[in-house]
């Protein structure tokens, strides 16, 4: 490698073959500082003169519209669920009433027969019970 590096150095030297416009390097510092200042002015907006002007000009609707939309969604979902529940419970009540009506008529007859026997038994006293057992 040293031979190759030496070859380049011997034939072409170590000075890069470039030059610059007259006075370029003398004014380079000032040119860079001016350029950076100019870039900074473009990038940084002018300072606001008052707090009011610093605040962005955003209306009530723009500021709260997200919250309003979210509230509307929640209200829709809650309303939908309530309506669905109300409809479901109405149908369930109707079914329950129908079943209950059917059951009550059946139970009434059942209760009626049981009640008669119970009444008959409840009217027996000990004397009647002994005579009934003796007759059997």
């Amino acid at each position, binding site marked *: *490698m040293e031979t*190759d*590096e030496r*070859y*380049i150095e011997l*034939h*072409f030297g*170590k000075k*890069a*073959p*470039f*030059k*610059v*416009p007259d006075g*370029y*390097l003398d004014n*380079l*510092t000032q*040119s*860079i*500082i001016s*350029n*950076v200042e100019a*870039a*900074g002015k473009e990038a940084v907006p002018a300072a606001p003169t008052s707090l009011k002007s610093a605040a962005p000009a955003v209306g009530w609707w723009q500021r709260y519209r997200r919250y309003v939309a979210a509230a509307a969604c929640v209200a829709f979902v809650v309303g939908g669920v309530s309506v669905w529940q109300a409809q479901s419970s109405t149908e369930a009540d109707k079914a329950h009433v129908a079943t209950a009506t059917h059951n009550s008529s059946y139970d009434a007859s059942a209760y009626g027969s049981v009640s008669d026997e119970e009444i008959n038994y409840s009217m027996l006293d000990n004397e009647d019970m002994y005579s009934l057992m003796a007759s059997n």
Partner: protein
Amino acid sequence: MDIAEKRKLFEQIVPLYSEKLYWAIRRIVLCHDDANDVLQNVFIKVWKGIDDFQNRSKLSTWLYRIAVNEALDFLRRQRNVASLDTVDNMSVADQLESDQYFDGDRAQALLQEAIASLPDVQRVVFNLRYYDELKYTEISQMLDTSEGALKASYHIAVKKITAYMKEHQ
């Protein structure tokens, strides 16, 4: 750091490093106008980043790193434009010889053409080592690459350049 301190530091950095960085950039991009544009961008980045510079590396290493990255970015953008432009297909040596700010002969122009034909890392390592005579340690910090890899890159670059020059002269 308040704005006054920042400005004071910046005004100390610019005269110390602007010329060195200009030449480091110029050797990569070759054309004076391009080098000046890249240098101006480098110092805008330095101004913006000076608050974040935390002395983890030497100031000069940080500045060179920004300069080299900006110069390589410029070359990549230029290559993308050139790949779309089929009219301008002059060789690097021909372009340099027609440049009023080129200060060499045909052999020098060919040497720059040989350097320009290298891959980015080899090109940067060769320039920083051969012309700027920077230590591998410093180049290693600058490019975030191991010294061994840099030595290998330099070795390959020198071989390629020598072969190119022997072939074209």
